[in-house]
């Protein structure tokens, strides 16, 4: 092979592997994104039925119930509420009245079955998703008042 052909072969090889990689990457990205919804959005039926997604808000005080390893609680954005069920051990910072983010699927009965409740690292820290949900609900309430 001439040097020029070699160089072309290398470039074509690189481009081909880049193309394959890009395909894998975008494909994986597309099927592994978890969208975020606020309890109000879920209540309005905007959340997907079959796909995994995230909700965030505050754990409503007095709603945490335990039954063996299953924990049920209510997540609220101060406007709407979503019942959540989770089986397993909650992160250290899960607390009534504090912010929480959960990932999972919406069951047929309107209960959110969480596969993961996200641990955050600081007690004074509000997960941005949870804050966003409460802020959104607050904004909607203000608009309605006006």
């Amino acid at each position: 092979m001439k040097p020029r052909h070699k160089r072309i072969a290398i470039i074509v090889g690189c481009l081909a592997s880049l193309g394959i990689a890009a395909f894998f990457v975008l494909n994986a990205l597309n099927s592994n994104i978890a969208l975020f919804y606020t309890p109000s959005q879920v209540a309005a039926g905007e959340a997907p039925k079959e796909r995994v997604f995230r909700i965030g808000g505050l754990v409503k005080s007095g709603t945490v119930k335990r039954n063996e390893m299953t924990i049920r609680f209510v997540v609220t954005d101060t406007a709407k509420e979503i019942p959540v069920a989770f089986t397993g051990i909650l992160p250290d910072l899960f607390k009534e009245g504090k912010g929480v983010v959960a990932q999972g699927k919406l069951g047929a009965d309107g209960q959110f079955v969480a596969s993961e409740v996200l641990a955050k690292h600081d007690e004074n820290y509000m997960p941005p998703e949870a804050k966003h949900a409460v802020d959104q609900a607050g904004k909607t309430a203000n608009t309605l008042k006006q």
Partner: protein
Amino acid sequence: MIPELGHFAIILALLVAVVQGVLPLLGAHRNDSAWIGLARPAAQAQWLLLLIAFGCLTYAFIANDFSVQYVAEHSNSQLPTVYRIAAVWGGHEGSLLLWVLLLASWTLAVSLLSRALPEVMVARVIGVLGLVSCGMLLFILLTSSPFERLLDIPQDGRDLNPLLQDPGLVIHPPMLYMGYVGFSVAFAFAIAALLSGSLDATWARWSRPWTLAAWIFLTLGIGLGSWWAYYELGWGGWWFWDPVENASFMPWLFGTALIHSLAVTEKRGAFKNWTVLLAIGAFSLSLLGTFLVRSGVLTSVHAFATDPRRGIFILTFLVLVIGSSLLLFAWRAPKVGLGGRFALMSRETLLLMNNVLLVVACGSVLLGTLYPLIIDALGLGKISVGPPYFQAVFVPLMIPLLFLIAVGPTARWKQASVGDMTVRLRIAFAIALAAGIGLPFILGSWTPLVGLGVLLAIWICVSAIVQIRERFQKSGNPPPAFWGMQLAHLGIAVFVIGVTLVKGYETEKDVRMAPDDTVEVGGYTIRLLGVKDAMGPNYRASVGDLELSKDGKLLRTLHPEKRAYFSSAMPMTEAAIDTGFTRDVYVSLGEPVGVEDGSGAWSVRVHHKPFVDWIWGGCLLMALGGLVAASDRRYRLQSRFSAGIPSALKGATS
């Protein structure tokens, strides 16, 4: 008084950094030996000043000076002294001070260990490092001074985040930062070479040990971080594809590519432009990591504050660094020339494939990390990209890379023969194939991923044996660089075994346990005896008492803890781990679930993790390999200015 002294030392350090960043570079340009000579003393003075500043901050922590805001926010009079010292880098401001101190230390090392280099080159390298230092020192002085005083002095400090009160934190950040900041040296060498216009094998030979040193620290830092997360976060995971972890992993991927590319540049004079780009990229990714972690756009244990000014400053700095170096590259690169030619099938090509795979892997991590931020910034909603994405992308990219690790070193430079390599490696491949098919059955059950992982790991090991044998037959005792490469590749194999087997065979159980209940994982029986209260220096704990036994024989007792620190309402899980060569048994306490019925039951997390410690063992081996390679005397020999043709002809080592 002491804090003001520290602040003053930082201001002086900035002035020195300006001198260090401007005069030697101008001197090198105008060939003014007086200005060139300023580089070393300036670097040493800057280091001394920053050491003083760092000492002042440490003193404020040890002396519990809560009039300093940073101390008040990150320490507490009850905090043990070791953690008060570690708390110096437990927050944003202090960790930045550590960053610049380490930068100054690397610069000091360059100034002391570069006697063999031409003065002009040293002046340029130290000058570029001085400019980087200017940027970071300005950042500290303008937005994040650790020496700010409080007018209203609190009685006691707010305490260090309990998660960070751990021996792992004492060493993890300095290691990681040494790695991050170390790439600035490789970057400075690349920029200096671009400025001088002589990108040749000599430049690559100077650059290699420094790049290796940074890479060693980064490898250790990432490994330590992963180990810390495993035993401290209480979930039993060792890597979460958390954006902050990715921020440290991306420079590592680029750095690994850079090490290999530098080898080609040194031995064959090829890939020069590409090597320069990788050096710029590795350092830019380190800065990007600092930006992501420190700006507060990410949310994690590492993101300390959300001050938008800080984010904007680092982002501007990042754009300046990347922009100006790429501009310089675009201006200089066309003059560089292409270097040695090579055939399509040659070690150069295989190393090029290694580079492409590593860079693509890095790009996919970058995409997954930045995508949610971009979508959010554009106001298109909030999304998260989870571990499944990274696994789906990473595994297919790593398979060819792992396959090539075993092949690359057996290929000749310039022109290799596929037939010849097949003959040399066919027995190795047969052994690996047999292991991939057979071993999983012995360990448990056969799954495609476990089979493939074992195959690749054994493939790397057996091929290493073949290479070592051939090497001895050919020419006596190989140089340290060869052994370093073999050790690091062996580290990869050990790491792959660890990841594969822990993914394939781990058992995780979250169970409710009342006293005297037992649970079985991986052939081990765990019995809960009870949970008692205990006191620590600055916390109260519930301590579990569990018995670990196998086949009716008691092995040991485990004591996982649930801690409540006095200074914060935040509970902390301390796992108890029985570490073994081939498996870990991991127990952590959830919460009391038998309060109502009075049974004293707790929710308990029990994991059996086969070969999990091999993951960190692999990281250690890689770092050790780097160390051995960097110790090669070749790098410290008086440099030959007539580019490295002789070494290129010598041939076939790493």
